[in-house]
Each structure stands twice: as structure tokens, then as C-alpha cells.
């Protein structure tokens, strides 16, 4: 199952790369995709939870990405104002945020979402503790009140 999803994704990537449906490249690509998928699942992901998503999770993940992109653009404008302001009105703070997840993929998704959202930057993760550097305290509002955690739990941890 794990290797199957990985191979399917890789074959899709191969199609994107080659952009044509000739027989010889297609056979070679699918063969390579299967081999690489077997190697990845047996060698890289043998110890812990691989990022396998169910179809419903994939759908929600795409929805989440769209929403994230909207948030990023909205917040990038705020940061741009700060950068262009000659007084440079920032007062950086470090915030420790606690979030407990069942899956590794949720932790990584939260860390990267925090970093992508302008004004906040994941500095370190240890266990359930996320150390977040904020340009201003008010940037961290969504993180501290757990909006992000709830969204990510809905995407990755419901079947």
C-alpha cells in the first residue's frame, strides 16, 4: 500500500517531466518509479509513519493548501508594510507553542505552515513543543489559540 501510493505519485511526476506518452520512456519510467518506491518504503520509511494519505485526506489536504496560500498572500502584505515602513515597527518575541499530534506528518505540516505564514518562523521542535519566532506578538494569534492545530488535525488525523 505504502509503496503503491509512492509509485503512483512517482509515475505521475514522470508523466509531468516527459510530457508525452511514447511507449519506451513510459515503460522505463514506470519501472523506475516502482523500483524507487520499493527502495524508499523499505529503506527510508521503514522505522516511522510514512506520509500515506487516504483519498478523503488528499482532498482535504488540497483544500487546506488553497486556504494556506490565501492566508500567506494576505499576511505577506502585512509584512511588506512592516519592511517598507521607515520606522521598522517590529518587536520580535519567541513563543513556545504546545500541540499534541498522533502523526508525524501533522507535526511537520504545522511547522512548515507556521514558517510559511509571514511573521512567524518555526525555530525548533522538541516533542510537542514548537519554538516560534514572531516579528510581532499579534502575528502569532492564530497559532497560539490553536486554529492551525485544529485545521491540521482535521486534514491529516481524521480518516
Amino acid at each position: 500500500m505504502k509503496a503503491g501510493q509512492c509509485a503512483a505519485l512517482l509515475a505521475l511526476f514522470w508523466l509531468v517531466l516527459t510530457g508525452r506518452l511514447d511507449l519506451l520512456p513510459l515503460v522505463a519510467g514506470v519501472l523506475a518509479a516502482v523500483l524507487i518506491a520499493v527502495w524508499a518504503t523499505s529503506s527510508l520509511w521503514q522505522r516511522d509513519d510514512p506520509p500515506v494519505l487516504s483519498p478523503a485526506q488528499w482532498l482535504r489536504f488540497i483544500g487546506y493548501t488553497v486556504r494556506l496560500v490565501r492566508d500567506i498572500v494576505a499576511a505577506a502584505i502585512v509584512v511588506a508594510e512592516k519592511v517598507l515602513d521607515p520606522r521598522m515597527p517590529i518587536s520580535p518575541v519567541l513563543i513556545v507553542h504546545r500541540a499534541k499530534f498522533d502523526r508525524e506528518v501533522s507535526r511537520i505540516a504545522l511547522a512548515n505552515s507556521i514558517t510559511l505564514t509571514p511573521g512567524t518562523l518555526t525555530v525548533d521542535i522538541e516533542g510537542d513543543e514548537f519554538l516560534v519566532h514572531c516579528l510581532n506578538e499579534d502575528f502569532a494569534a492564530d497559532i497560539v489559540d490553536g486554529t492551525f492545530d485544529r485545521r491540521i488535525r482535521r486534514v491529516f488525523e481524521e480518516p
Partner: protein
Amino acid sequence: MKKALIIALLAVAAIPLLAAMASMPRFGSPEQPAYTHVASRYLQKGAEEAGADNVVTGVILNYRGFDTNGEVTVIFTACAATAAVLVTSGSRKKEKPGEATVPLSPVVGYVVRLLAPFIALFAFYVVLFGEVSPGGGFQGGTIFAALIIILSVVAGRNVAERVLPARVRPWLQIAGPLSFIAVGTLGAVLTGSYLGFPHARGLLATAMLMGIELGIGIGGATVFASIFWRLGDEP
């Protein structure tokens, strides 16, 4: 005195070279022999004779196959020599887990492992489609070596070394020249001359070209990865 002598010697050596340069046809001039006889033949017959969609590939691997064969051998000999010079008597430093080093960030480890299969497939694509797009054996091999380097930095050398096991590594290092010789011999069997490609751009000629590219890719990746690993060894 010594310096002056060297300069005088170099000047004397330079005169015939410059004279030879002067008697050559002007750079890019249409009267050059390369443009009058060879290039038109390459361009007109290249596609059907060489078995490659791309003229440059046809020239490098077919018309001038001997040349490239020698070049590949020289390059890989040089790489092997570099790797051999880096070999030191000492063995690899044993790193005990949690021995005063900073643990790896889980985010970096996760994302690198997520990307690794895609990088591997992309390297394969660059090797295989070197015939029609920018790329080829060396370039794809370099991307694959980059993957191995980041895997050994992030996931540990044990994981990365499993891709290129130490037992077969010497053979993989010379995979470039070896595949060239193998394809050349196959050509000798099929057409009667070393590195002869069966005429008409068929599946077989394409497969032979891809075999050479694949060999160069594997050889390049192994050599670069070996050099990187050698650098990490303790003297």
C-alpha cells in the same frame, strides 16, 4: 636568471604555435574543412545514421564515438585517481548517536525523505533524456550524487551507502567506460565494427545510446559520492 630562461623558452615555443594558429582558417569562416565536408553530412544523414534524435548526441556518441570513449575513460581514470589520493590509512570516524552533536531537525529529515524518491526519478529522467534535452549521463549522475550526499548528511551514511554498496562500488565507478566498451562490443557483433550502431534509427540503437548514458550516469554518481565520503573519513 632562471625566470628569464623560462620566459625565453616559452617565447620560442610560442612562435611555431602562433604561426600555426595564423595559418588556420579564420574562426567561424565557412571555408573551414569542418564546415564544408563534415557538418553537412552530420546534419543531412545524422538522424538516420546515428540512431539519435539529437544531432549533437549522434555526433558525440556515434560519429566521434572513439573520441568520446577515450574521453570517458580519461575522465573516470582521473576521478578514480582523485578518490584514490583521498584514501587515507585511517578508518571512518565512529559517531555514536547522541554524542554531543545536535540532533537533526525532524522537519528537515522528513522533507528530505519526502523529496528523495522524486530527486532519484528526476536524475533518471535527466540521464535517459540527455539525448533530446539538456542533460545526459554526467548531469544526471551529478544530481544522483547530490541526492546521495544529502541523504548521508540527513539520514546517515548507512542508508546512503545501501544505494551504492561498498562491495560493488569499484565496479560501479568504472561503469561509464565499461558500458561504453560493452556497447562497442555489441556493435562489433552486430555490425562488424567496434562502436558500430545498427543503421536506421530503431529501438536497438536508441537502447544502446541509453545504455552508454546510464553507465556514465551510474559511474559519475558513484565517483562523486565516493569522493564525498572519503572527505568525511578521519585521516
